[in-house]
């Protein structure tokens, strides 16, 4: 038996997806405003001010928390846009704000001292020293750990800090330390840190060349995919490239993270919350994944085990990896 229950934190790109996640058993849902203030600034996604208020009402009525991600780095000279997002999220009764920018954290901590602050993965705080900086300076209550750590390292961090930790367990996987990557910006001019987008569809083209499908990003060939192979989205760091030593997936295969098998280990490591990536995902996906993790966590709390991979089989077509949680990944 585990001593405490772990919080399940689920993505919502739309009000409909939020209701699905709440109904499927999420303990908390995270979402963002429909603008450049959040790191999933995709067309057709995210919440207006009114939608957020309504969504929070729906979630709170069912015992679910709502965390609002304002996790891009404010543009110099336009910091007011990000500050307004903070003010509006607080006014909407958000349970916590997920922030990464030092200036914005300072503003939120000063202006809204009662509001719970979480440190976004975009802040890439990977050491006890970095985490303590944010807890001491801004009273951050929870840190979302970057996907660069092993389970053992996470346990070490938890024993050295006095705030909660949240870790990604499923979905898209950044190969690079989050918040410290401008690969997309180099090829397209649009970056996760400044624009909330990575490898944006607006800069992607597809060409059929002979027996291959060739996706390009900002004019750079990201892959040449044989007809028989499934074509993953051309995220820059998950493309095939060539060096003098070898060609292929130099950085990472187009795999997604699945740390389902590590849940007991992560619980033992003292993690407070598990996060599912995917605010860009549809309702069917959200429903299936949230239900699967809900069952797995309930079973774990009761000392039972479930075959999470079987539950997830429908949700994720492509190959999966345990990423940096396994030391061999490095």
């Amino acid at each position: 038996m585990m001593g405490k229950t772990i919080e399940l934190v689920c993505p919502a790109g739309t009000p409909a997806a939020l209701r699905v996640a709440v109904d499927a058993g999420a303990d908390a849902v995270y979402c963002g405003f429909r603008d450049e203030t959040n790191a999933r600034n995709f067309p057709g996604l995210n919440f207006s001010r009114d939608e957020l208020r309504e969504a929070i009402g729906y979630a709170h009525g069912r015992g679910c928390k709502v965390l609002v991600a304002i996790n891009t780095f404010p543009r110099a000279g336009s910091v007011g846009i990000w500050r307004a997002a903070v003010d509006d999220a607080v006014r909407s009764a958000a349970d916590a704000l997920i922030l990464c920018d030092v200036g914005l954290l300072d503003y939120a901590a000063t202006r809204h001292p009662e509001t719970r602050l979480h440190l976004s993965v975009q802040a890439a705080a990977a050491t006890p020293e970095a985490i303590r900086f944010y807890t001491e300076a801004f009273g951050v209550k929870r840190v979302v750990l970057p996907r660069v750590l092993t389970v053992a390292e996470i346990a070490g961090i938890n024993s050295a800090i006095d705030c909660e930790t949240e870790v990604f367990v499923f979905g898209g996987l950044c190969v690079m330390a989050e918040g410290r990557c401008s690969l997309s910006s180099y090829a397209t001019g649009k970056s996760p840190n400044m624009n909330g987008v990575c490898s944006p569809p607006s800069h992607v083209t597809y060409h059929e060349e002979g027996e291959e499908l060739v996706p390009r990003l900002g004019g750079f060939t990201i892959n040449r995919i044989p007809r028989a192979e499934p074509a993953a989205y051309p995220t820059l760091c998950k493309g095939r490239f060539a060096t003098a030593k070898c060609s292929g997936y130099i950085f990472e295969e187009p795999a997604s993270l699945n740390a389902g098998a590590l849940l007991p280990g992560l619980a033992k490591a003292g993690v407070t919350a598990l996060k599912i990536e995917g605010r860009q995902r549809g309702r069917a996906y959200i429903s299936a994944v949230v239900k699967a993790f809900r069952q797995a966590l309930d079973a774990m709390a009761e000392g039972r085990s479930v075959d999470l991979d079987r539950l997830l089989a429908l949700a994720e077509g492509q190959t999966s990896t345990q990423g940096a949680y396994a030391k061999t990944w490095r």
Partner: protein
Amino acid sequence: MRPQVGITLGPVLFNWQPDAWRDFYARIADEAPVDTVCLGEVVCSKRMPFFAELMGEAIERLERAGKSVVLSTLAMPTLSRERRLMKDLVAGFDRVIEANDMSILAQLAGRPHMIGPFINAYNETTLAYMARRGATSICLPPELPLGSIQTIAAAAEGVAVEVFAWGRSPLAISARCYHARVHGLTKDACQFVCGEDPDGLDVDTLDGQAFLTINGVQTLARSYTCLIGDVPQLLEAGITGLRLSPHTCDMVAVSRLYRDVADGRCEPQAAMEKLRLALPEVTFSNGFLHGVAGVALTGS
């Protein structure tokens, strides 16, 4: 005439052989018109022992030549060994430290320090917060456009503002070592293969486009950021320093050209032409500064 703008030599990002490292700094001390020199390993802690014993000699020679010496810290310490190492380095160094990670910032509170380009300071409020804690200068993140640079510089109030003006721009850092990966090795048994590529390992697209550069756990641009043609605009924007990132090319010649342009002794376009002639195999870029794809070269 006292120069209006400082020139900083950034830390060597690559795994250079100890002899090459020592000779490089000796020549910089004797010949390069740079004001500040950042020393120290930023990318991989495993490389540190190779030049640790050369540091003292390099610092002494640089300071004798009138340069300010700054110690740059690791961009992503994670292992407890690395964290101890950083803590001890910072505690034992009585000159200015350049922080490249938030881990080290708490330790530097109240002590004058520099904010390195690996720390996310994207706006004036973040810089103001860091200045209150003792930051005296900052090298802005390479992806910032001119408008942001201008706003930050205008609000900087006594904090020196430097931009990344020469060399392959750092784009990403990972827990995974790509040099080890492409050589079929593990990170823990990497055999220091990154030492074979003193300017990094070329990464092309499958269509042969020159694209990126691998340097251990770091990924950089393939093109060299070259802001020499933009120096007048940068000065107008209020920056106080230009950072040159070391490569195996003639960095003394590069720094002289930047010095001459900064001091108004050479036309920016003429300097750009000289760089092109000296380095015909290198592609230049300044796209980040102009708010477009970083790889682009505009305005020249």
